[in-house]
């Protein structure tokens, strides 16, 4: 049996008196693609952000590769974050840098890779996301779909073990969703471990190994996509699925 790469134990997170995450215990195995779905406000994004400690859990623990993030010092957390790429709903590209510079920044400043090597690697990644001809463009000139693919390339530049996607297609025009999902699917095919928060049920069905259904601060159901979409166990999940167009 393989060791899980991420283990979440009794995770809870409060914002003031608002309990967003109540008690979550789950694990992610290497190479798995987890798709987290559920109604808005159910705590999906907060959960994802707790995995790389962008949000500090109120209680419980998050283990990455055997190390409990909540007990580590800032320096070690920074190191482990290198191994968890994150893609945001709003892209969060650095607007003052070109596409190429966006991708090169962290490898050069954090890993100390020299400019030539970083540039070479950046071009490879841009080819992977099909954007090498935009290397010298500034983010403001890119479409949403292009920007999100650059953001994926930027996260991949740190050679992470896990990729976290926080509603990567929610801010996109419908015709651009496909190009981003294609890149993600390719990544999954290459064996990348991924945790994806999304509303794209088609992606969940075709790419996910496991679907986690999250609502009211709990993971209500953890199942294969076939089982979850075909025969949801909980009333909460049945209710949710009945309300969305499939």
């Amino acid at each position, binding site marked *: 049996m393989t060791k899980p790469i991420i283990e979440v134990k009794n995770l809870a997170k409060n914002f003031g008196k608002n309990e967003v995450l109540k008690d979550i215990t789950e694990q992610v195995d290497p190479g798995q693609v987890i798709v987290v779905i559920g109604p808005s406000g159910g705590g999906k994004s907060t959960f994802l952000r707790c995995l*790389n400690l*962008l949000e500090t859990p109120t209680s419980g623990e998050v283990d990455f590769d055997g190390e409990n993030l909540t007990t580590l010092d*800032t*320096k070690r957390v*920074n*190191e482990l*974050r*290198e*191994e*968890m*790429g*994150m893609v*945001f709903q*709003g892209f*969060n*590209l*650095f*607007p*003052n840098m070109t596409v190429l510079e966006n991708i090169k*920044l*962290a490898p050069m*400043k*954090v890993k100390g890779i020299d400019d030539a090597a970083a540039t070479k690697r950046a071009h490879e990644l841009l080819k992977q996301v099909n954007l090498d001809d935009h290397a010298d463009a*500034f*983010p*403001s000139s890119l479409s949403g779909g292009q920007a999100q693919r650059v*953001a994926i390339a*930027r*996260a991949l530049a*740190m050679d992470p073990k896990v990729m*976290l996607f926080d509603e990567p297609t929610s801010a996109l025009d419908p015709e651009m969703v496909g190009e981003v999902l294609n890149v993600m699917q390719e990544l999954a095919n290459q064996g990348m471990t991924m945790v994806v928060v999304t509303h794209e049920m088609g992606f969940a069905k075709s790419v996910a190994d496991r679907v986690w259904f999250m609502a009211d601060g709990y993971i209500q159901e953890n199942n294969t996509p076939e089982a979850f979409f075909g025969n949801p166990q909980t009333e909460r999940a049945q209710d949710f699925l009945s309300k969305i167009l499939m």
Partner: protein
Amino acid sequence: MKKRLVLFFALVLALVTGFTAMTTTTANAATDTSLSKVQKKGTLVMGTSPDYPPYEFQATVHGKTKIVGMDVAVGEKIAKDMGVKLVVKSMSFDSLLVALQTGKVDMVISGMNPTPARRKNVDFTHTYYQGGYSIVINKSDKGIYKNKDSFVNKTIGAQTGSTMYNESKKQTSGTTVKGMTSVSDLILALQSHKIQGVAMEKPSAQAYVANNKELAAIPSDFNLSASDTSASVAFKKGSTALVAAANKSVDQIKKQNLVNKTYLPAAGKYLKTNTVNTSMFHYWKAFLTGIEYTLIITVCSVFFGFIIGVILALARMSQGGAIKTGLRWLATAYVEFIRGTPMMVQVMFVYFGLGLIVNLPALTSGIIAISLNSGAYVAEYIRGGINSVDDGQTEAARSLGMSSGKTMRFVVLPQALKNIWPSLGNEFITLIKDSSIVSIIGVSELIFQSNIVRSDTYRGVAPIAVIMVLYFILTFTASRILNYFERRMQHD
């Protein structure tokens, strides 16, 4: 005559004397080493306010501006008799005594009257010159005004803080007394009929009248004691040995009547060469020096102010443990305090106050004070700029494994800087203008230089017009350069 400290400086002086009182009493108990100290360093630093011809003023000699006048001759004699070299330091009259007490200068010779009030704070030599007062009027008014009593319902001007200013107030009735810091301003006010007469010392009055055909001098008829009309050399309180040595020179000067025989005629010659050519172009070197110092002060202050501003902004935004809370509190207190006190007071405090601990040159003090001041304002701009950068930028950088320091340096600050660039540009341009404040501690920036040119040429308006244009050229050029960089940063 000039002197006696203005109320405005009273606070600084009180503070300074407070400190020195503690140190000097102990020093007095031991043997007085003031003379041997001066002889050891080989120089005698004389402080003077060179806007008072023929006592002291600036003249262009072989294309170089230097301070000349009978007081400088007196200083040279004293230094020579002690076997050391004379160094002349110029500053505003109001600052002289503070400079003496804080050790910025070894002695003050600036037409200073040894009044009882001053005697409390400094030691005086015997008097080297006995003067008197005149009132300068417009020649066209000759016949209307006879003496101090002719100015009922009119206005007399006098140098602020000077003996004349106080005596004019005391010894006239129904006359308004208007105070200004420099005599050249007063003459300008006289010529533009804002005031009807200017009270000043007789030799000065004679110099002004000789150099300006529009003016005439009348006797003042003030009732004055000898101490109000005589000039002495001032030394730091307790420097008995120095005073004794200087007294030997002063006595010689008096005995041989050197002031009237040699010093005044020599000063008069400078005055003549001075006024041969009063075109502003003739003084281009003086203005160039002014521009040079204004730029040095501005550029250095912008540079250090920015660094201080970044540190303060980060301190103000730090969150967490007791140390960080303390830092935040300190930074906030600093910013509030600096913004709540006048820059002029800060400049004086750094020069005179800090001068008690380390002896800083005026230029350095000015740069320090203005940097500290600017830093407080820049900190607020930067804080606003950092807050204006979307949180998503920080999250993206942190998710890539960048530390908070690297995130700040490589991601947030460059964007914050771009957002606040127009504000920083304003600060830079404001600093070009505000650097003029350091003229009060005698840094030869534009304002200071223009005052010198004004008292040299007896022309009131032209130098002001010149520096106005010069300031505008500086600020306009600066804003063009800043706009260029702003355009280059536009990517989105």
